[in-house]
């Protein structure tokens, strides 16, 4: 059933070969084809702008008030590219190898190689658009090291790389809007995908201001709707980030790839109150100079400065002498959880570890530390009210990114013909763990280069009957969407959408978060359907569906998280190995590290929706590693 359509031949030539073999659409015929792009983040805006430039009729949808708000904007660190401007031994092959290994051998080699190749073009493209990357005094681009790799390949724009890349894509998009080649539909949220004759031919949306449900028909549909970390409720994702688009597509037949692969980022500001609405990331770069520690004694009540050196446990330096505080994200996160579970966590709720800059300040001087990390220390103080120059920062891991997403083939097409998926919404390139500065790279690779090459091939090689919104499939799908909205409004129970999302998030965080066990996952799988049941009987929304109603928007998104959470746990339960961010407590090395099981789990899991209340069906895409030999990661 799963055909990944990987081109034959040596990996270095596959993308070129694929591009040569793909069919083209004559420039004069392009305006006859309509394309729907849902989402206007890096992948969506880049795809919409590029397809508009090529001459297609593009309709781009965003639930924000302007495409510049997408959550890509919050990425801090940078974007990788194998430019080798530093002459430090970087190459496409090395970026490819680092990404495959970083993903703990659970990504498709062909896609990752293409990503590494395209990384070069992305930087060129962004510079031409005027993205203000950091520069050396000679006017050349500056790079820095990131994410534990051994070369300096990360291009950056201070701590706001995501913002600057998104603005570049947004500006290119607005240029196409002005030219009349892209129509922007703002404050418009996708609620379903319409399938006609087995192909994706349109979408149903809700206007978030008037509540009107609209149908839109096109020749092909692209989803670039981001990740689903908000299934944990507390995450570093923006509040509106949700899984609705990919989940509704999943229910229409798109297989969901590796839903349990989620990334927990080690350096976030800990939870401070029960009212907290989200978690804030502090750049990973802080671990370059900060030392992570907790008290040796359980239930320590003294302030950090009163704990003498010999009563502190610098646990990362102790357990991983060669990598120390710079172990990869998944390892750092798991260790923080372990020490907190032992009762040695710090801060008001015991859910935190110290990240101490006292030594760095002594070694480098206050001014140097301020210059390097000043803006991060400011953010920290703004949120916590503490001065990290005098007391150690407190950090704790938080859900940050989801490697899972809709299963796509080499062309980024899902299992529904005509439904393409780009950026974080697909499952493709990061395997079981994403390396730092790779999300921006993948979003832009998909948006600027892959989708604008593969979509035309689909259009040129497919006989598409004319379809408009009067088709019965649109009427039926619209009626279903309307029915679901009416059902949400009609529950008239007692609990708010937020309270359900909070409770669901706690379940998923406790049992499908940093450490997963058979018993825990089974417990979660028992609790989630009950909560879902309660949701549909005890939800309260005030107001109507024909006005701007933020509670209704939330409830609609929560209703999908309640279904996705169950699939995450099912996926985590079947994968009894540990790999990357997926840590099954039953599968550890004697030292307590993640232990992969390549004999049984060297595949991507792709789940098929079988209907409400039915168990989903598992399809497996076997993964082969012909270019990077399978090996166990070690950071000791």
């Amino acid at each position, binding site marked *: 059933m799963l055909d990944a359509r990987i081109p034959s031949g040596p990996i270095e030539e596959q993308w070129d070969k694929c591009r040569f073999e793909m069919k083209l659409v004559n420039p004069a015929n392009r305006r006859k084809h309509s394309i729907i792009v849902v989402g206007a983040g890096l992948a969506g805006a*880049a795809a919409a*702008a*590029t397809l508009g*430039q090529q001459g297609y009729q593009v309709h781009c949808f965003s639930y924000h*008030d*302007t*495409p*510049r*708000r997408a*959550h890509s*904007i*919050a990425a801090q660190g940078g974007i990788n590219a194998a*430019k080798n401007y530093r002459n430090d031994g970087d190459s496409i092959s090395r970026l490819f190898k680092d990404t495959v290994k970083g993903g703990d051998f659970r990504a498709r080699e062909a896609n990752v190689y293409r990503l590494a190749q395209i990384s070069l*073009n992305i930087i*060129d*493209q962004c510079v*031409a*658009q*005027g993205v*203000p*990357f*950091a*520069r*050396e*005094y000679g*006017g*050349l681009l500056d790079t820095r090291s990131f994410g534990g790799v051994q070369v300096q390949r990360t291009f950056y*724009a201070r701590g*706001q790389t995501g*913002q600057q890349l998104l603005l570049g894509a947004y*500006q*290119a998009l*607005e*240029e196409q809007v*002005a030219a009349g080649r892209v129509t922007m539909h*703002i404050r418009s949220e996708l609620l379903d995908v319409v399938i006609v004759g087995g192909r994706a031919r349109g979408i149903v949306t809700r*206007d978030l*201001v008037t509540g009107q449900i*609209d149908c839109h028909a096109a020749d092909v549909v692209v989803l670039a709707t981001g990740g689903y970390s908000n299934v944990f409720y507390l995450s570093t994702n*923006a*509040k509106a980030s949700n899984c609705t688009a990919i989940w509704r597509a999943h229910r229409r037949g798109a297989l969901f790839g590796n839903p349990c692969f989620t990334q927990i980022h080690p350096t976030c500001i800990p939870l*401070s*109150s029960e*009212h907290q*609405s*989200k978690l804030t*990331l502090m750049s990973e770069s802080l671990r370059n100079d900060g030392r992570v520690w907790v008290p040796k004694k359980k239930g320590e009540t003294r302030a950090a400065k009163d704990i003498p050196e010999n009563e502190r446990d610098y646990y990362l330096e102790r357990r991983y002498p060669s990598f120390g505080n710079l172990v990869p994200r998944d390892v750092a996160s798991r260790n923080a959880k372990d020490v907190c579970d032992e009762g040695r966590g710090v801060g008001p709720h015991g859910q935190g570890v110290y990240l101490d800059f006292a030594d760095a300040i002594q070694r480098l001087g206050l001014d140097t530390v301020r210059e390097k990390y000043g803006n991060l220390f400011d*953010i920290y103080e*703004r949120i916590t*009210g503490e001065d990290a120059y005098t007391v150690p920062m407190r950090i704790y891991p938080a859900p940050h990114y989801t490697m899972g997403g809709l299963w796509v083939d080499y062309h980024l097409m899902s299992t529904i013909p005509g439904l393409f998926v780009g950026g974080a919404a697909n499952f493709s390139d990061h395997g079981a763990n994403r390396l730092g500065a790779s999300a921006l790279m993948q979003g832009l690779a998909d948006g*600027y280069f892959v989708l604008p090459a593969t979509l035309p091939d689909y259009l040129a090689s497919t006989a598409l009957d004319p379809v408009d919104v009067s088709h019965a499939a649109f009427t039926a799908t619209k009626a279903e969407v309307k029915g679901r909205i009416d059902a949400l409004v009609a529950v008239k129970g007692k609990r*708010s959408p*937020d*309270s359900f999302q909070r409770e669901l998030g706690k379940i998923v965080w406790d049992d499908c978060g940093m450490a997963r066990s058979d018993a825990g996952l089974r417990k979660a799988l028992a609790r989630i359907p009950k909560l879902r049941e309660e949701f549909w009987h005890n939800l*309260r929304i*005030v*107001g109507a569906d024909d*006005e*701007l109603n933020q*509670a209704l928007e939330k409830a609609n998104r929560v209703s999908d998280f309640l279904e996705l959470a169950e699939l995450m746990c099912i996926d985590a339960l079947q994968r009894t190995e540990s790999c990357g961010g997926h840590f099954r407590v039953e599968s550890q090395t004697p030292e307590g590290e993640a232990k992969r099981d390549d004999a049984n789990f060297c595949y991507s899991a792709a789940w098929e929706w079988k209907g409400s209340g039915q168990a989903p069906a598992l399809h497996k895409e076997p993964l082969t590693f012909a270019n990077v030999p399978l090996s166990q990661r070690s950071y000791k």
Partner: protein
Amino acid sequence: MNLTLRIWRQQSGHVPGRFVTYQMKDVTSNMSFLEMLDALNEDLLAREEPPVAFEHDCREGICGSCGFLIDGVAHGGQRGTTVCQLSMRFFKDGDSLTLEPWRARAFPVIRDLIVNRSAFDRIIQAGGFISAPTGSSPDANAILVPKEAADTAFDAAACIGCGACVAACPNAAAMLFTSAKITHLNALPQGQPQRDQRTFSMVAAMANEHFGSCTNHGECEAVCPKEIPLEFIGAMNRDLIRAAWHRHREPLTIPGVVQQPFHENTEIEAERS
């Protein structure tokens, strides 16, 4: 702490709004301002009253979604801080706060504290870009950018498009926003070929959107969460003169650029048809 909130409630742009007073109890100092409003909304929902609509997303001060006036000050008065990053520890027990949406003719109210800022997108459409079709770019290091130019471009590009500058300006001018984008692109070598047209066109678009003119109050700079400096407005004005000098043409007719004022109702109808 306990607070009294006077909040602007308006169900839609078609009906008049009014202030409604709410008592907030048990606010803790480690909540953010928006978390305090979340708590208010949970209370309202429990009482079956419609929650207060306010825009927000990243809650890290970068997406630009949030923003309203607290006691008449955009984003609440902490320098360089969006309202989503504003902590309740800056307030004290018994405070009485007035919350209202951005007030500007170009930003019509949609509901409660939410306004329509699409005029900003149309200013960008008029020229806030560098035309570089995907695939046509030279090697990234083929374009040398002096570090100072790159830094200036970055300082200007830090704008998050929240609209606080317009709300704070007595004339509801969008000069700080527009000048930030013009400065970002005009400072870079890549931006030179379209420099004059960009400047003309964006200034014209700004004028067509019912924004006022700058009279050097500097309120915009004071409330800007990204601390975009007022000097960029001067840079924009200099670029406008430079462009007029270069072109020897009537500045306000730029071929190929839509410069009609925007009417919200017509757009919504057009989308439906």
